[in-house]
């Protein structure tokens, strides 16, 4: 009699465990939901035109460099975005300067303070813009690959749609304003080549 009680309790316990351990779905239904794929191109378009261009806060490049010299920790914490650990961070910066060289794929610009900047206009790749914007989180995506697809689509929008339009009337010697992403390493902000991946370039009236 006692054994039957024991077996009943064990069976109930096993049932409760199983009930809370697994769930069943129709595979076809699940696959159709899964196949309703996330459109990275539409997402990137919206991210660029409605997110990055409208709401990204950018700091003036010379001001940022000055702040990193005074208190790098604070500057990196306040203005930098980074995904993991490490000494590097991405920043969204803006700058105004004169084009001293217009080459295939890049503009060489010198600011009023004498800082030389290289603005990549063709080779816009990597995660710098996505990460510097601070608008997209890894946890919003199922996999790292999906997260990286955002960068891929975003870079394509900027590289193929936005920047070519911006560059239409720009020639050597023009004063331009640029907003874009830059990667800085703590403690190594001096004498670095400052490469900016632009999100927007415009001819300045100055």
């Amino acid at each position, binding site marked *: 009699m006692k054994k039957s009680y024991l077996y009943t309790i064990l069976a109930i316990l096993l049932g409760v465990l199983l009930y809370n*351990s697994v769930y069943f*779905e*129709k595979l076809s239904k699940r696959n159709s939901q899964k196949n309703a794929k996330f459109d990275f191109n539409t997402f990137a378009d919206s991210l660029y035109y409605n997110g990055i261009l409208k709401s990204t806060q950018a700091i003036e490049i010379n001001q940022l460099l000055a702040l990193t010299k005074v208190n790098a920790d604070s500057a990196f914490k306040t203005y930098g975005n980074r995904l993991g650990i490490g000494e590097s961070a991405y920043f969204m910066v803006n700058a105004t300067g004169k084009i001293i060289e217009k080459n295939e794929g890049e503009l060489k610009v010198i600011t009023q303070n004498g800082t030389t900047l290289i603005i990549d206009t063709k080779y816009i790749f990597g995660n710098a813009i996505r990460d510097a914007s601070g608008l997209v989180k890894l946890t919003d995506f*199922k996999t790292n690959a999906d997260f990286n697809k955002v960068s891929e689509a975003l870079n394509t929008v900027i590289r193929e749609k936005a920047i070519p339009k911006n560059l239409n009337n720009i020639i050597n010697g023009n004063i331009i304003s640029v907003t874009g992403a830059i990667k800085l390493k703590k403690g190594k902000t001096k004498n670095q080549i400052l490469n900016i991946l632009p999100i927007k370039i415009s001819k300045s009236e100055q």
Partner: protein
Amino acid sequence: MNKELLKKSQSLIALFLLCLVISVLSDKFLTTNNLWNVLRQISVNICISVGMTLIVLMAGIDLSVGSVLAFTSAVCAGLLKNGIAIQSLDLFIGFTVLGSVLSALIIGLMMGIFNGWVITKFSLPPFVATLAMLTIARGATMLYTQGIPISNLGSSFEFIGSGWLLGIPVPVWISTIMVLIVVFITKKTAFGRYIYAIGGNEKAAFLSGININNIKLAVYGIAGMMAAIGGVLVTSRLNSAQPNAGTSYELDSIAAVVIGGTSLSGGVGTVTGTVIGAVIIGVLNNGLVLLNVSPFWQQVVKGLVILLAVIIDKKSKK
């Protein structure tokens, strides 16, 4: 009497001296954050080492625990994230956190029992049988994951390895409960006494009517399940299953057992000793990192400490 007490507490004294030296050399060692971090890190090794203690007490060894940890970690993450799809039945079986953890524990148990079965059925030396399982499980992990980590497992799963409960990290709770269970088994049950008896003299144990094969199956099974618990903790802490997880964990667990005073020839030792051994290794690792010692030297130092522990064990027997 005093000599006996000193002998019993030698690993505790070693731990105390180690803590003293590191705290003098590094002001970061005795901070609350660091100590919680050390405890969180050693929880995995404690779980594995406790299972290993039972095996070593029987004069056995299990070299497969690191690979079993990796495989169960991958299965746990894989089931939680991808479930099981059965095309022919148009059925998808999804797993909750509880389901994936239980599955990992059952698989760990089965792998351990398989080790025990091979050792008892074919009279193979445990070293060889578990070495084979080490390779099998590592290969199976690579096959299952295709060499790619399984990541983003959700915050409720992450709680197991990174959460806090009543001000104490969850992994510390889990490892403490495991230790208490195994201490109870070894001290208060006939099964525990059989383990010591087999380790002390297997032939005598057999002649006194102990079913040696069944005890071995159970002990290797428990060790496999403990490795799986370690696997769940590692996966949850990283929120990701890494195909190369658990590499050389078997050595850390054997080191913890030996440093804790358990004799490799079986029959002598305690689970609490192993816990102290695991803490010594954890503190040593942490101290060497805090003191900026190169990882290559860290391995050398760890090896020397294990060597010293074995020599002391050998000397104390004479």
